[in-house]
């Protein structure tokens, strides 16, 4: 074998790899490097000590690998001789599965993984994290504040006035939701004389009829006695 020609091809390949599949190039480089190495071992004299140290002649390793690959190719040939569904053989086309409970078919974990990847790649809506902290508005407190302003059955207050009086946007949102919730409970009414006129809030039941515990249920899955805190503290993206 001519080392120079191998080396030239080797270098030419290194040039080409920039535009090619790196793993393919790596395979080729390994082969070329092995061949050059073998040739160099043949050309250069080596002290006997090193020869003994060599566990295995690299040529043997290469030959063995080539033999193994020959076997792989032979096995693939055997596989090719089998009549195959989709090639020589056809089966009945798949049908719609009937509805109803049925055992689960064996799943394909890579298909699942691809799906997961697809979902992640989709990106989804921008992430919004709501953070509840001690300074966040208290739902119950906001509701009680509105009730205090109304001052009993028949009391009427302008909704805009209530909301503007609040310090933070979060308090305004919580209070607004609280008003809606109290309307739902039948405690308050909302009135507006005409289109675009100010909206007023009207208390329609006696204070005694107000069961503030009902507001507790607003926070789903909240534990009894837990402080009612809405997850609307501050936005942090």
């Amino acid at each position: 074998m001519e080392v120079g020609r191998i080396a030239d091809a080797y270098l030419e390949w290194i040039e080409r790899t920039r535009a090619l599949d790196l793993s393919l190039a790596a395979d080729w480089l390994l082969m070329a490097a092995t061949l050059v190495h073998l040739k160099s071992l043949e050309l250069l004299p080596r002290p006997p000590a090193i020869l003994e140290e060599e566990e295995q002649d690299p040529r043997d390793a290469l030959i063995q690998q080539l033999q193994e690959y020959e076997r792989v190719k032979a096995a693939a040939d055997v596989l090719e001789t089998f009549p195959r569904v989709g090639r020589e053989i056809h089966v009945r086309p798949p049908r719609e599965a009937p509805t109803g409970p049925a055992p689960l078919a064996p799943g394909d974990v890579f298909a699942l993984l691809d799906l997961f990847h697809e979902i992640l790649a989709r990106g989804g809506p921008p992430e919004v994290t709501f953070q509840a902290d001690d300074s966040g508005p208290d739902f119950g407190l906001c509701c009680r504040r509105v009730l205090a302003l109304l001052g009993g059955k028949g009391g009427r207050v302008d909704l805009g006035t209530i909301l503007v009086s609040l310090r933070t946007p979060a308090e305004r949102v919580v209070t607004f939701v609280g008003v809606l919730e109290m309307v739902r409970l039948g405690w308050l009414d909302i009135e507006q004389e005409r289109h675009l006129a100010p909206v007023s809030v009207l208390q329609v039941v006696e204070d005694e009829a107000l069961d503030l515990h009902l507001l507790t249920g607003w926070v789903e899955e909240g534990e009894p006695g837990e402080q009612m805190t809405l997850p609307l503290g501050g936005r942090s993206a």
Partner: protein
Amino acid sequence: MSEGILEFPQRPGGVDPELVAGVEALLFAAGSPLAVPVIAQALGEPADEVRLALQVLEQRRRDSGVVLDRVAGGWQLRTAPRFAAAVHHLLGTRPQKLSRSASEVLAIVAWRQPVTRPEIERLRGVDSGGVLKHLVDRGLVRTAGRTEDPGRPLLYRTTALFLEVFGLPDLAALPTLAEREGMVRGLGPTDEEEVPPASEVSPPEGAERSEE
């Protein structure tokens, strides 16, 4: 009447059995009804011959489990009606595959567990409560405590049945996206499209709800 073949004098021996076999193979593989000219063309035989073969086949299959019917201007092999109950029984107990949406939710739970429903819905961008319930009902997903997040949402995990159905010895055997990507990087003749970067990969071990 049982010997329809004999009505055609020019062929006292009946139709070429190989043609009958070919017609049967085509009807079987097609599934849907086939018109005579379609069969004739596929086999490269005259339509009249095919018609005769169909009659032979119809006759022959009359008492079997699969009969030849004229349907929608063509011919179709169908199970004999008297076996409807057994067929229904069989197909009703045949393994079922997960729907696309169920697979999506399951994938998220598998690789992100433990994970909350809000997180699942954030990733999918659609309400997933019903699908999640379906997966819990099917025993593929279970609840596993709650987070300390507002509303204290439930956490979900996959079950032992999940491992069984997907042939996994344990959760650590879940392939990672990096591994999948590594497969794609090969030089194989894959027509698969590029898989997005692995930056979003979270291996199952590190599946602590990444909340960033």
